[in-house]
């Protein structure tokens, strides 16, 4: 159920990217897509009443395996957030430059490239 909601969020982002004419809205759409995937990854490793995936000496291995959340998706999400930050900053920089050149955020008016 909750995975379906993640996927719904992804499609909302995709709708924003494909159907909106404003650069800022396109960027927001891309961000929504990205965050829905991050959420999905985190949910993959999540378990109810789980403990932090840190093992100490007082804990037996079985308890750890059956109670701890999966740490790998968390590492993946961390990486993917950093990548998303890089892409976002580049996107915003380019859109600011585009605004300086064209004086608008509307992509239908940016048509200097040959069609």
């Amino acid at each position: 159920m909750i995975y379906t909601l993640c996927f719904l969020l992804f499609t909302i982002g995709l709708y924003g990217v494909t159907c909106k004419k404003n650069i800022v809205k396109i960027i927001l759409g891309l961000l929504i897509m990205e965050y829905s995937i991050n959420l999905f990854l985190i949910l993959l490793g999540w378990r109810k009443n789980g403990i932090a995936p840190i093992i100490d000496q007082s804990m037996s291995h079985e308890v750890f395996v059956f109670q701890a959340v999966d740490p790998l998706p968390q590492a993946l999400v961390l990486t993917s957030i950093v990548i998303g930050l890089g892409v976002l900053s580049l996107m915003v920089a380019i859109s600011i430059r585009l605004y300086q050149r064209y004086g608008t955020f509307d992509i239908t008016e940016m048509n200097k490239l040959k069609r």
Partner: protein
Amino acid sequence: MTNLSLFILIPLAAAFLIPVVSRKLKWFPDVCGIFTTLLLLLLSLQTMNQETVYAMGNWPAPYGIVFVLDGFSCLLLIIINLVGFVSTLFSFEYIEYFYTSKLRYYSLFLLMLAGMNGVVLTGDLFNLFVFLEIASIASYALVGFGCQSRELEASFKYLVMSTVASSFILLAIALVYGRFGSLNIAHIALLIKQHGMNDTIIFSFVLLLVGFGVKSAIVPFHAWLPDAHPSAPAPISAMLSGVVIKALGVYAIVRLVYNLFGMTALISNLLIYSGIISMIIGVLLALGQWDFKRLLAYHSISQMGYIFLGFGLGTPLGILGGAFHLFNHSLFKSLLFLNSGSVEYETGTRNLEKLGDLVQKMPVTAFSSLIASLSISGIPPFNGFWSKLIIIIAAVQAGKPVVALWAVIGSILTLASFSKIQRYVFFGHGKNFDQNSFKAINEVPLLMKMSMIILAILCTFTGLLMINGVNGIFGPVVNVLDAGPHTYIEKILKSNFFIPGN
């Protein structure tokens, strides 16, 4: 034995070093760039005929990240670093003339190189995504490097399409991880073998195919390429068309199809028909172009079609043809983009109608571009002829003569559009040609000439040598891919797991 992490460490370290050091030393970016790419080229030539698995941090295969070197990665490494080296040679004077910031240029260039080397070496699905993003982010920035309105527009378009593709890839990786709990390509292949395909895996495979399809600009997803490639500086166009679409797109698709999911008739048909469609549509759109670089960019789409067709056939001969054409295309297409760059360097325009009669004034550019045009349109004895011949023979042998016929038609149309370039730029002139404005034109500087001559010689002689030597480089590629997932799994996981038979 080469340490595989060097291929990522060296360019990353150089990309970091250049902005730090070159505030004081103005000559540093050029020298460091050329030295780094030369070093990488030598290292990659050294990896020929080697097969290694390198475990990062000494963690064994399914738990840690591994780097895998086999015939196919080796071929891609050689192409990437060769074209990288030649493009750096070309950039030396070109960037100084057209653009301002050399240090940022070389820094981004080396980052892109590091990302691509990582993509072709890694044996881990998420790590592949990370390197893919490193290479992509660097290439977005390089496409918009001039900061003119057109370049920014092209860069934004490329960025949006490519980021959506990356999101698809990441979603597919998340789905695969959710199903199998592993990210190692070989381990996933093993688990697919044991548990069979199910809906989740098929869905994630489709997502991966779409994602990497956008990266490799195959026809339904090609819209960004004809804008992005001409907007970049010429050496970067050479890198983008020659290498980036192959390393990020074709390599990943072929690796996943052959070594992870296994080749089936459906996938084979999908690749063949998308190949044919991009082959024909790309070349038809190219015929109508009047911008030198834009015409070349459309040809990249068309030639990618041949590569997809070769790999899609799935027979050993088809794989051989695909791999050989991949190698050849990176040579002649980067040569053509460098030619267009040197024409722009001297005349200041890329419009075919305004150019003309450059053969007396720029003989090196004219003849190297003649060689490249003959090879791309498949005239013997240049290299493009042999790879297209192999692909066509493979198509006939696989019982698909209609496919072979389309490939021949595509090749004839390619010849037509390249005779247009030769006619309007070098050996004749266009309607708006103004003789007086072209009086002061000379040949380009030495390093730019050198880079074009290197590629022209390679274009001529790889065609001749490959008659005998084709098994030397391409034999291992065919072996790796034709053997399917089983051998790949065995090589990487070794005896850690029980592997069921074929």
